[in-house]
């Protein structure tokens, strides 16, 4: 199990908790991660609204690097993963476009064949590593905790070009949570969007949308929200204070985790190396419940 690790802008430049928890947990499950050198932004979203060509070029470029390494790309971010899958899909269906890309890639001495394989963290943990390995690795089961899974829009849509889980009834993140000894439950707002892409147009609406979901999660008696998407995490965790202000509810406190952080806690990784101190949401009560190192 060897993969080319693609961080993407958001993780690499600010969501260190996600990166750290991935780097510390994966090897313990027998997943070898190789850093990609010379990579750049996947192009989504910065280019998708400006120039389709620039967007596709950016993704093709990074996939070309992975092809050079001969490894499948493990993209941490839902957005990056979708961007790669979509680009691969588009170039597969347009030889002309592919040729045009390669012409441009040549300037950096790169070439995109279309062989690059992609893997999403759900697929890697749920389908490749699997239940047996994960449950076996759990030394500190997260019993008595009930988490709301938030797979994130881009992990499940658009299903037509292939996403890692069901677009209307995603279950993999729930499974992953239960494998850690915690409880996961369906809730009507599960596949609701965090709203983050609206930031440029209307920051307040983002907080509204995110706030509604956090309220639901709290109302339905969850101990916290779990995701693997840096964009969603940014809104729900980093911006939770702002959300409280916007929805006018100071009590709206919902602990938010990256799944890999919980995974780390369950398999006995120390909190420091999971970057848990970077979570801005009030996670300490949950950490106390979990105990461990």
């Amino acid at each position, binding site marked *: 199990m060897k993969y080319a690790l693609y961080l993407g802008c958001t993780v690499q430049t600010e969501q260190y908790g996600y990166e750290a928890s991935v780097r510390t947990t994966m090897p313990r499950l027998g997943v070898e991660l190789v850093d990609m050198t010379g990579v750049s932004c996947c192009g989504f979203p910065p280019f998708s609204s400006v120039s389709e060509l620039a967007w596709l070029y950016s993704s093709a470029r990074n996939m070309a690097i992975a092809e050079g390494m001969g490894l499948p790309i493990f993209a941490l971010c839902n957005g990056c993963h979708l961007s790669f899958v979509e680009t691969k899909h588009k170039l597969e269906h347009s030889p002309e476009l592919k040729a045009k890309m390669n012409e441009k890639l040549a300037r950096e001495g790169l070439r995109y064949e279309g062989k690059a394989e992609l893997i999403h963290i759900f697929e890697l943990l749920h389908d490749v590593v699997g239940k047996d390995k994960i449950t076996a690795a759990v030394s500190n089961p997260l019993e008595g905790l009930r988490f709301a899974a938030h797979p994130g829009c881009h992990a499940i849509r658009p299903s037509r070009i292939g996403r890692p889980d*069901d*677009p*209307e009834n995603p279950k993999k993140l729930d499974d992953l949570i239960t494998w850690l000894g915690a409880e996961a439950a369906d809730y*009507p707002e599960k596949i609701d969007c965090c709203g983050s892409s609206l930031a440029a147009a209307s920051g307040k609406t983002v907080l509204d949308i995110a706030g509604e979901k956090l309220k639901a999660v709290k109302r339905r008696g969850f101990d916290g929200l779990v995701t693997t998407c840096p964009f969603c995490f940014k809104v729900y965790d980093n911006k939770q204070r702002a959300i409280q202000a916007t929805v006018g509810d100071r009590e709206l406190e919902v602990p938010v985790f990256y799944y890999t952080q919980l995974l780390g806690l369950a398999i006995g990784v120390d909190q420091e190396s999971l970057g848990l101190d970077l979570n801005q949401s009030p996670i300490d009560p949950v950490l106390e419940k979990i105990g461990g190192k």
Partner: protein
Amino acid sequence: MKPVLVIGGGIAGIQASLDLADRGTKVHLVERTPSIGGVMAQLDKTFPTMDCSICILAPKMIECYRHPNITIHTQSEVIGLEGNVGDFRIKVLEHPRSVDATKCTGCALCSEKCPVKKPSAFQVGLGQRKAIYLAFPQAVPLIATIDREACLWFTKGVCRTCEKVCTSKAVDYEQKENIVDLNVSSVIVATGFEQYDPKDIGEYGYGRYKNVLTALEFERLVCASGPTGGVLNRPSDGKVSHNIAFIQCVGSRTQTSGYSYCSASCCMYATKEAVLIKEHEPSSHVTIFYMDLKTFGKGFQGFVDRARSHWGVEYIRGRPGEIREDPVTKNLTILYENTEVGRVERLDADLVVLCTAAIPHRDNAKLATVLGIGQDEYGFFANPDPVASPVETDRPGIYSCGSCHGPRDIPESVAEASATAAKAAEDAARAEGVA
């Protein structure tokens, strides 16, 4: 004069058979299930007159059964066809009932005593039947049949209770399948349709949410002879439902489902079902979500106007985006847009009924091969010239009527059935040398 073969014992097949039999032609009526009657036998009432469906159908079923010119082959399928118009040689495979038709009186004592329960196809899975059973109370012929996949004797070699309790010694575990050879002048295909399975439209939660039903399931729920005796006890908790919503065009008018056509009867049967709810309980709140109200049939517009003004059924133009279920109460919330005002709203409902596409029957391909006739891009039997020859397939002497060649309502099916009878009569006359 040679007999005519009619395939399918629904209302279309029944009508075609009766027309021919009444004019003196011998008919072989082949039905794949244990009883004739088809989907119409499962309906509660029929629009726009609100006749009790089985009540108007049962006499015709019995008439078929008692008609000296009609031979009914149930649990049977056509497995071979050779020859040409005027002289088709047919092979019909009769599957064993494991019950002697000449002895069974349909008293149902056997199914009463049978220990094995299975979901009843007639009740669309909402109710149960035994391993030995009568398809439904008015089944024709009223003869028990054994489901060999379920029967303990056939699966585990034990039980034989039915044999013990049967007073007329009708149970016959040894019964073999039987092949009947027929020589007919024409063939009439009336095999009907089936319902689209809305599981694939995940946002509506069918299969996940207990209180989301298909319209056919609802017909059984609202029917006096249904599993709840016509009381709208919803599946999740048996609570009587007062807020009920219907969603049109589920699977139909949908490129992504593969059924991009309008199923033609849903707007009206939904209206009928809405009126039924109001008749049962006028205080109920009933909403129908539609895209275009298809009121093109005789009396349809008046029926919808009455449903709206007299019964207070609410019609909203908009196809809901999503149905949500409260994890605790199992109540449903519909996310929809009233497209006539451009407003996004939510509607709470105890029960949601999906009006699903009428799609080609899964056996069509097999039958098309046996008969050597064509299918359209969806799988319905094809009429090369639907305008000039609306009931003719691409093979002379083989005709199609009813919903096996596209969505049809009952009167259209009946009219077409008579039409195929006329075509068959013309073939016979030609064979007789009538110039």
